[in-house]
């Protein structure tokens, strides 16, 4: 009986193993991980074809994960010691992996290949360069915050001058509020709301990123003003609760006077609402010209077995040929010297608003704020935001919120 059973069990186990386990990867293979681009498959297959011309013997595997699950996947792969070779990382997340020595310094590759390093807009590479001069990523596509003005609402409220300071911005927002209408809206994920603080001279951290620097009287004033404006309806409270769809939709519904968001957000809204065009929308820099990026770059895992091949794939991905496709598919800047002007040129007649927005997005690259090249960036963000969000929504006293945020952020910076 026992014999029978074990025989049966073995047979069963063997058969399911045989039928369902997939043979593990081929010998030479590099894996590419993208962020939230399942629709781009065809084009990525194009890169792979180009790549095979150079490396006929190296297989390429492409994986895409949605933004919210990207980190979960990547971290698990890191833990297992099998990170994808070529990774597309959003925002400042790379700093953490770089600090943990999980990303390759691309500096030598950039130095050895002037064509590679020379294809990017001046200053573009700095976005991913650390203080000690290491370049961990190269640009793939670039978004940054701008201020979009709903012209008809501004005209209705009798506002002729574009707000140039925080106070003017708040005053204008207040004038435009009304039944179902609000004056100002911002996207808030990552640090996208930070220009509001920066235009009042508030920084997140001090110079050497060792301590919180935001608990100042200016910050208190800013926070109080934002909370009051939110309460009065001058600021749409989706600013502090929405993610992506919600704020974009709110602006698209034409009831919001001013919208501070990355350019891709506006294009998304424009694809849903016809009224968003050159006639009805003006685009300007936020007061003080401050902006926060929402950008994507390419890096190579430090543990890759084929660093040269991985870099070659990145070169293909950032080449003029494929960046042209990228830029025209998504109407997006690539920080590629040759490609971006062509894209803007193409839109000047076809869609003047897009041309204007992209021109603005590609300028004043030094006015960046809310971008921490810190390994604990995500923790600082979480500590700050979970304390300050309730204050913005009128749940907590602003000073208490700032104190709590400061304590938490400082603890994040000192703990291991």
């Amino acid at each position: 009986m026992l014999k029978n059973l074990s025989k049966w069990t073995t047979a069963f186990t063997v058969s399911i193993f045989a039928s369902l386990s997939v043979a593990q990867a081929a010998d030479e293979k590099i894996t590419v991980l993208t962020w939230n681009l399942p629709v781009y498959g065809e084009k990525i297959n194009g890169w792979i074809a180009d790549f095979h011309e150079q490396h006929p013997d190296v297989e390429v595997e492409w994986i895409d994960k949605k933004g919210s699950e990207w980190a979960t996947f990547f971290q698990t792969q890191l833990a297992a010691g099998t990170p994808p070779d070529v990774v597309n990382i959003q925002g400042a997340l790379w700093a953490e992996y770089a600090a943990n020595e999980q990303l390759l310094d691309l500096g030598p590759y950039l130095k050895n290949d002037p064509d590679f390093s020379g294809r990017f807009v001046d200053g573009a590479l700095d976005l991913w360069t650390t203080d000690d001069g290491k370049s961990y990523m190269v640009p793939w596509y670039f978004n940054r915050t701008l201020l979009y003005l709903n012209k008809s609402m501004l005209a209705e409220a009798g506002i002729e001058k574009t707000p140039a300071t925080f106070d003017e911005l708040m005053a204008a927002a207040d004038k435009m509020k009304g039944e179902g209408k609000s004056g100002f809206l911002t996207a808030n994920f990552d640090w996208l709301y930070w220009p509001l603080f920066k235009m009042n001279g508030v920084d997140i951290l001090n110079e050497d990123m060792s301590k919180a620097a935001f608990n100042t009287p200016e910050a208190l004033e800013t926070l109080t003003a934002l909370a009051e404006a939110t309460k009065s309806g001058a600021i749409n409270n989706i600013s502090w609760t929405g993610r992506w769809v919600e704020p974009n939709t709110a602006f698209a519904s034409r009831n919001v006077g001013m919208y501070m968001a990355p350019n891709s957000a506006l294009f998304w809204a424009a694809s849903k609402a016809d009224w968003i065009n050159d006639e009805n929308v003006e685009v300007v820099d936020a007061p003080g010209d401050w902006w926060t990026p929402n950008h994507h770059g390419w890096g190579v895992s430090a543990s890759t077995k084929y660093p040269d091949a991985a870099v070659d794939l990145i070169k293909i991905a950032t080449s003029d040929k494929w960046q042209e496709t990228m830029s025209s598919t998504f109407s997006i800047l690539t920080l590629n010297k040759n490609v971006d002007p062509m894209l803007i040129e193409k839109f000047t007649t076809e869609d003047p608003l897009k041309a204007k927005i992209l021109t603005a997005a590609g300028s004043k690259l030094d006015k960046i704020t809310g971008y921490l090249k810190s390994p604990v960036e995500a923790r600082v963000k979480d500590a700050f935001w979970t304390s300050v969000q309730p204050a913005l929504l009128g749940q907590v006293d602003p000073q208490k919120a700032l104190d709590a945020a400061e304590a938490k952020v400082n603890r994040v910076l000192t703990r291991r």
Partner: protein
Amino acid sequence: MFLKPKTKRNREIAFIWMLLLPALMVYLFYRIIPLLWNFVLSFSFWSPGKPFEYAGLYHYEEMLFYDDAFWTALKNTAVFMLATPISIAIALGLALLVDQKIRGRSLYRTLIFLPYPMMVVAVGIVWRWLYNDSVGLINYVLRSLGLIDQPIAFLESYSFAMASVMVAAIWQIVGFFMIILLTGLQNIPAHLYEAAVIDGARAHHRFWRITLPLLRPSIFLCVILGVIASFTSFDLIYTMTGGGPGLATELLITYIYKASFTLSRFDYAAAVTIVMFFLFLTLATVANRLAGGDAGKVDIAD
């Protein structure tokens, strides 16, 4: 004479373990070993690709004295768990109704159960949209009935977010509980009621004295499934609110996930996991005592 039964008994025991082993292996690999790993991790500093480093009670201290998010998540979890007794109460009411000899009762049973097989991610997407403040159905209905003037952003409001998520969770599971309780109801021997009627017991007496005590195993099963469901509610919270606004709907399980993968503090998340495990274990032991002691008896058909 003496040896033979012993070997027979031995063989029987070996056979029993043969039967048990495959299932136990699954739990060993995917529950117990990971738990031990978490246990070790909770006393270390670690991040993916780094070696373990002894940390002592660092993470536990952090949790107890510095991390208000943990306490909020704990409190929210306690609140969220109320969804289980609420669903059981509603399910019991429904079970009593569909247990009666009425026309179309099997149709009612089916329809009420229908939400349960739905994928939680899809349920989250749908409910998020029903709750939407500008175009959501719920706001539309409330506004057209004149109950509210201003639309309510349910999932973005501190006061409503948790309740809104709980409504969705209850909506999904209540039919399942109803079926389990219905099973229990139908297994209560009819003669007990008949005897009670003869004794002159009123309806509510019969309910409290006969129905409820005899339903205890079924109710306990619901409680256990409810606890498991509150783990899987991760998907629901994750798709509906992501724990927000602020920490208003952050549960322990979503907090563990966030600490691990968003903040890459796996070591700290492990400590929270261990605390959560012992909390639930205590809770289950207490519930088990209340249910009569033998959790093994728990079942649908008893």
